[in-house]
């Protein structure tokens, strides 16, 4: 029987002997593998990006929404839900009494006009407490956030978004200035740094005031949201149950709230983007199959070009099986080398994407690398069975008759 080392040497010499053919097939195979890697890295990058964005919104976050809404999510469309009973500051206070609750921030929201000297602007006003800053992972570019005082106490202070500062105050120093919000006056004590969109609210365009001030401003005791940060990820279900039970007890036995976790929303996105990654991988997989067919064609041509050689090998004592092994080894060696080059090109391509779009962590997932490499070798083998069988069945008399 043939020794495997000899088979590989023989195949390697054949690949070296027909350089143009070998290079063309390597290009086809490596493009196939590389495209799988690059496309899946795009999908994976999108998934990681979204995950990262959600994490920046707040970790272990639980949101309590008034009303029994079936819709989970936190878009503005939800805020118009019919509310049988208002969520109040007392409700929010009650929710702090659980050992697994790290902190709580109530939120009241509404539109109002902000004016300073002769400049005016419609803004979104958020009434909340000091805790919101760390729950949402926001930061200040200047000044301080709301003072750490009783939620029930209104005070004439406010924190403004970056865009409002720029538009109302332009070159002036905004910190310490008194502005008018609706009918009330307040002093600017801090300016938020730019965070962009944060679940439907543009942080650059808000004005934040103490929750009690907002209740007075909008003349309503009801809250729009209660944000709860649980101490650990594992304690989230307990805190959710505690919140539901507490509110139910306080609302005459009616569970008239909806509790949404960041995790639920995140998991949905995660699923969508994982499916997207698989789909991209599948699309790229087609190019692998095309590469396989190309290799089959070229191997078929190679076999007919080398009829004399194959006839000779038979005359020298190669069996059908021996010929098949020699031809298949050649094809698989080719696929393997093409696969390795493809992996390298794919990694390079993913690096190129990360370099061009730094926000997108485009790393090809391990499964894509393993899968595309194995598929490359398997398609190489499967598509070369036909040429190899054709070679083994060649009539040595006819093959050797060619002069």
């Amino acid at each position: 029987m043939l020794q495997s080392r000899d088979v590989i040497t023989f195949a390697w010499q054949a690949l070296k002997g027909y350089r143009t053919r070998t290079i063309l097939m390597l290009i086809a195979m490596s493009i196939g593998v590389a495209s799988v890697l690059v496309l899946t890295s795009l999908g994976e990058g999108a998934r990681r990006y979204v995950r990262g964005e959600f994490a920046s919104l707040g970790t272990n976050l639980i949101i309590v929404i008034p009303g029994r809404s079936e819709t989970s999510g936190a878009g503005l469309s939800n805020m118009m839900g019919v509310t049988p009973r208002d969520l109040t500051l007392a409700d929010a206070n009650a929710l702090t009494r659980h050992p697994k609750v790290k902190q709580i921030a109530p939120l009241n929201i509404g539109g109002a006009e902000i004016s300073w000297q002769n400049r005016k602007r419609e803004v979104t006003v958020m009434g909340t407490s000091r805790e919101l800053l760390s729950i949402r992972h926001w930061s200040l570019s200047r000044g301080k956030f709301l003072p750490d005082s009783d939620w029930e106490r209104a005070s004439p202070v406010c924190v403004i978004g970056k865009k409002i500062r720029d538009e109302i105050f332009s070159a002036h120093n905004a910190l310490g200035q008194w502005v008018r919000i609706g009918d009330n006056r307040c002093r600017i004590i801090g300016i938020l740094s730019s965070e962009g969109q944060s679940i439907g609210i543009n942080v650059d365009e808000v004005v934040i005031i103490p929750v009690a001030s907002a209740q007075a401003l909008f003349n309503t005791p009801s809250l729009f949201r209660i944000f709860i940060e649980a101490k650990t990820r594992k304690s989230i279900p307990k805190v959710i149950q505690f919140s539901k039970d507490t509110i139910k007890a306080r609302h005459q036995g009616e569970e008239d709230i909806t509790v949404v976790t960041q995790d639920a929303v995140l998991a949905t996105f995660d699923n969508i983007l994982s499916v997207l990654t698989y789909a991209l991988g599948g699309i790229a997989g087609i190019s692998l199959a095309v590469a396989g067919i190309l290799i089959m064609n070229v191997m078929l041509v190679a076999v007919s070009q080398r009829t004399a050689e194959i006839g000779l090998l038979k005359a020298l004592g190669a069996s059908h099986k021996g010929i098949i092994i020699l031809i298949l080894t050649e094809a698989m060696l080719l696929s393997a080398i093409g696969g390795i080059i493809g992996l390298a090109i794919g990694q390079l391509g993913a690096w190129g994407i990360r370099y061009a779009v730094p926000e997108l962590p485009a790393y090809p997932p391990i499964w894509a690398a393993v899968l595309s490499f194995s598929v490359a070798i398997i398609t190489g083998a499967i598509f070369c069975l036909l040429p190899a069988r054709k070679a083994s069945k060649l009539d040595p008399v006819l093959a050797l008759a060619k002069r």
Partner: protein
Amino acid sequence: MIKLQKIHRNFQVGDQIVHALDDINLEIAQGEYVSVMGPSGSGKSTLLNLIGMLDHPSSGEYYLNDKNVTELGEVEEAQIRNKNIGFVFQAFHLVPRLSAAENIELPLMLAGIEPSIRDAKVSLALESLNLTERARHKPEQLSGGQRQRVAIARATITEPAVLLADEPTGNLDQKSGHDVMDILEALNQRGITLIMVTHDQSLGDRSARSIKMIDGRIESDNLNKIDHATVS
């Protein structure tokens, strides 16, 4: 050692059946030197391919060393070709990308013999055919005579009992042709059975036994009185 009984070999060409071999009965003993002559299409190459087990008879029986090899499986046939039969072709049929030494090594590689044993055998063969200096050369760097010597070395590397040569000097000039014939005859004198197809009468006359074929039949089968000194 070679015994053919009522061998027929038919080819279908269009709707006509061509009898390439028509009732061939032939016995060749170990160590004989046989030339097969005849015009083109007389079936001489078909006979040689059949003895070399590259082709199969349509009917009849072929005994090699008293063993009926007509009904052997493909794997056993390949083994017999590897160990018992050597081929030398008019067109040399060297693998162009392999060096002279690697070409000679091929039958041993196909038999799965250890590299160390192969190397020893190959260098011995190169030496005996005066090719040692050409061992690393590719076929395209060799002259016709050298290529045929490489082919002979390859055909004899497994020490077969039968050497089949199909027009071995057909692609060579006269000088190299003579060299190649000398080598083949020297091998025959050391005991190998040499069967050579040729249409060159002067080559045919050198052999101890010459068979003439016409239209797939053996026309004559004569023992020659030869005197090598006068012919060459």
